[in-house]
């Protein structure tokens, strides 16, 4: 795998977080002045690998060579000075400073103590010409669109004589038009000798603009080679290790059951006229791009975001859901999108995390009965196949998959009629993912209506009985089994084809 023209060469790199081995024994080269795609499922180790190259993490084992020299960056700053910059998934700019000041904030041309404005402007113009971005140097960053903010990040990278730019999901939150312009920029940079490592979930994008592609699965590099030998199918089967058509479970055909929840013309600042029904025992998948409004639908139903128009009917009854606590009282529970930020109390025990929503009902005159809650918590942990040492250990000490299972345990304890799950398998290992799918199917079999949101299209199609594709805050299309993945995918981008939509 050692290529003579590699800008970066990794030799047997490994990295663990606690008990999880995120990257295992990876040896791979990044050819100079190329656009290199890095693909893999969530949790395959892409970001970890990239962060080791960029000095955010240091490798536990192995050697990284940059331009033929072994390097061990102790910080992103050291990596930057050597010519490696990484654009994180979130934009890292100073919002109230100008475009120019953001670009040169690290190394500002100066005369003595004062910034050399003339020099800064001329350097900026050089960058503007090089990239063709045509940004206004005096605009404040907070007034720019997301795509333009990314351009500022890119210009900042180039201004530091960067030889390698790592982009982690740069197009995830861009519009189609913006994505095209980003692609143009990336190609332009490569033609000027900059090496680009592009981490992306959008396989079409990777096939379209990269020359080399690296496929990762479970922390290992499955293969690396010229992009023109790959197709979407070949990449996916490399990433997942199984073919696309796999359906995990038999469909329940629950669409004849009673309607558990009816969402009628719901609108707010993110959503326009959302209407759909979920039936008892049905798993309804919500698919669509990140930012399409899937999570916002969940939050609106759960009372976490305000609804400005429309109504909800639960079991035929009109319901006013003004907050998550009223949602729970009305039989709705949501397992939120990011378990660490919105779901769990990481410092608190597994027990407290499982029981927090139902302590009131289990308490005797406001006092908690220790032995009874402990018993109940242990039983719940068993139901969701939680792997733990003590029910009193902190939730933060568990792996991602087990943390997610805690939230399902909480859901079972609450016993809702309608369960919303938002990205329940993000960043969990394959085994935990299977377990979570099984929990979902079992809950559906008990008659619970499940609204299932996931960014992983294979998963949505594999688990749901019916799928709604959300696009720009609207229901774009409805699909029933057997699903046609191409049609579903097209709806992601606002195209509605085929007769399978409703």
């Amino acid at each position, binding site marked *: 795998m050692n290529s003579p023209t590699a800008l970066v060469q990794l030799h047997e790199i490994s990295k663990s977080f606690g008990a999880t081995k995120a990257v295992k024994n990876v040896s791979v080269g990044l050819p100079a002045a190329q656009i290199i795609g890095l693909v893999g499922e969530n949790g395959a180790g892409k970001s970890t690998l990239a962060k080791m190259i960029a000095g955010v993490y240091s490798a536990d084992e192995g050697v990284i060579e940059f331009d033929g020299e072994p390097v061990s960056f102790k910080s992103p700053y050291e990596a930057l000075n050597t010519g490696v910059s990484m654009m994180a998934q979130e934009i890292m700019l100073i919002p109230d400073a100008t475009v120019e000041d953001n670009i040169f904030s690290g190394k500002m041309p100066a005369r003595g103590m004062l910034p050399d404005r003339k020099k800064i402007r001329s350097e900026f113009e050089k960058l503007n010409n090089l990239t063709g971005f045509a940004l206004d140097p005096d605009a404040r960053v907070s007034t720019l669109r997301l795509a333009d903010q990314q351009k500022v990040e890119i210009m900042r990278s180039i201004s530091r004589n960067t030889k390698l730019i790592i982009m982690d999901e740069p197009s995830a939150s861009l519009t189609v038009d913006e994505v095209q312009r980003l692609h143009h920029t990336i190609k332009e940079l490569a033609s000027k000798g900059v090496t680009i490592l592009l981490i992306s979930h959008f396989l079409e994008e990777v096939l379209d603009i990269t020359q080399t592609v690296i496929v990762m699965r479970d922390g290992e590099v499955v293969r690396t080679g010229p992009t023109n030998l790959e197709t979407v199918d070949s990449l996916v089967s490399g990433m997942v290790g199984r073919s696309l058509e796999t359906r995990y479970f038999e469909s329940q055909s629950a669409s004849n059951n009673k309607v558990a929840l009816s969402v009628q013309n719901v609108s707010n600042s993110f959503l326009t006229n959302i209407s759909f029904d979920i039936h008892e025992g049905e798993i309804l998948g919500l698919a669509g791009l990140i930012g399409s409004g899937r999570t916002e639908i969940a939050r609106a139903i759960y009372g*976490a975001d305000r609804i400005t128009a429309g109504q909800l009917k639960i079991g035929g009854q009109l319901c006013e859901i003004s*907050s*998550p606590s009223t949602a729970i009282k009305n039989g709705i529970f949501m397992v939120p999108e990011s378990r660490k*930020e919105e779901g769990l*109390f990481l410092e*608190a025990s597994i027990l407290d995390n499982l029981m927090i929503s139902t302590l*009131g009902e289990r308490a005797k005159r406001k006092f*908690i009965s220790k032995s009874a809650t402990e018993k109940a918590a242990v039983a719940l942990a068993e139901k969701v196949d939680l792997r733990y040492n003590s029910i009193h250990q902190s939730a933060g000490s568990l792996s991602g998959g087990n943390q997610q299972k805690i939230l399902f345990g909480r859901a079972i304890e609450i016993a809702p009629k309608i369960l919303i799950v938002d990205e329940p398998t993000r960043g969990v290992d394959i085994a935990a993912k299977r377990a979570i799918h099984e929990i979902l199917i079992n809950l559906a079999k008990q008659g619970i209506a499940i609204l299932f949101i996931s960014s992983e299209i294979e998963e949505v199609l594999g688990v749901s009985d019916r799928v709604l594709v959300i696009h720009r805050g609207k229901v774009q299309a409805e699909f029933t089994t057997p699903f046609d993945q191409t049609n579903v995918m097209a709806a992601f981008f606002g195209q509605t084809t085929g007769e399978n939509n409703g």
Partner: protein
Amino acid sequence: MVEKLRNYGIVAVFATLFIILSFASQSFLSPRNGANILDQSSILIILATTSTLCIIAGIFDLSIAAVGTGSAIMTVHAVNQFGLAGMIGGILFGALLGYITGIAIVSTNVSNFIGTLAASFTYRGLGLILASGGMVTINNPETAETMLGIFEGRLFGLKGAVYVSLTFAIIVGLALSKTVWGKKVYAVGGNAQAAYLAGIRPNRILISVYVVSGIGAGLAGVIYAGRYGTAATNSYSDTAAFTAIAAAVVGGVSVFGGTGAIWRGVLGILTFALIGNGLNLLGVDTTYQLTILGLLIFAAVAADQIFRRKKA
């Protein structure tokens, strides 16, 4: 190991200090010295209790000294009006101020730090108005005598105020560790967003915490009025509030919220008292004491940070 050190560091520090002082000074172990340490700490035990509660809930209440002062003044007025029952008025006044602070901060989303700082100025000004710019005195000598007896009189060698503050600490400690409300306080302090999505109403919980903080400060005000028979706008200085917060932190309560226990704040205050007492007994110049205390507080916070990074 690291986890244990973080959890029980304060116990080790306290025990070590205790043992060293036992050997270094003969008078340290005398019952009178022990009683002294507790007597001096009684007010701070109350304030450290509520500060610990606040920090666990993810907030700071910088207004407690001002509320305590206002309550002391209010207690004098109420006692002059209603006799001994007026002491309840002092506590209720503290609760009311806490409630107002809570409502104001929660409904406007002002940061609790700045919000309670502003409240502190406001309540001190309110005290000034209530005291007509000066000092108020309990005008019935009999009532003053009784109150003095309640808080300064000794039972088994300890002053009444010590029993009052330890009882308060125990009640709040039990409420926090044994009740549903307590669990919700931990949840809100640990992750307010997750608490909200789990069906808790974080604003209600936070307001209740401000109220308890106000009750503690009110109690401190009553004790002040009882001890001195008077109250003025400088009855409690804001240093008392800062000391209470520092005690919680030195006791091992994480400033990030969601973890900790009341006994930690109490042990933190006792550690401060032990250091002061020990330095006195050893004849160390009092001028050095503040510096030593300051360094200790910094070390405690730094240790918490370092342990966190290790874990991450």
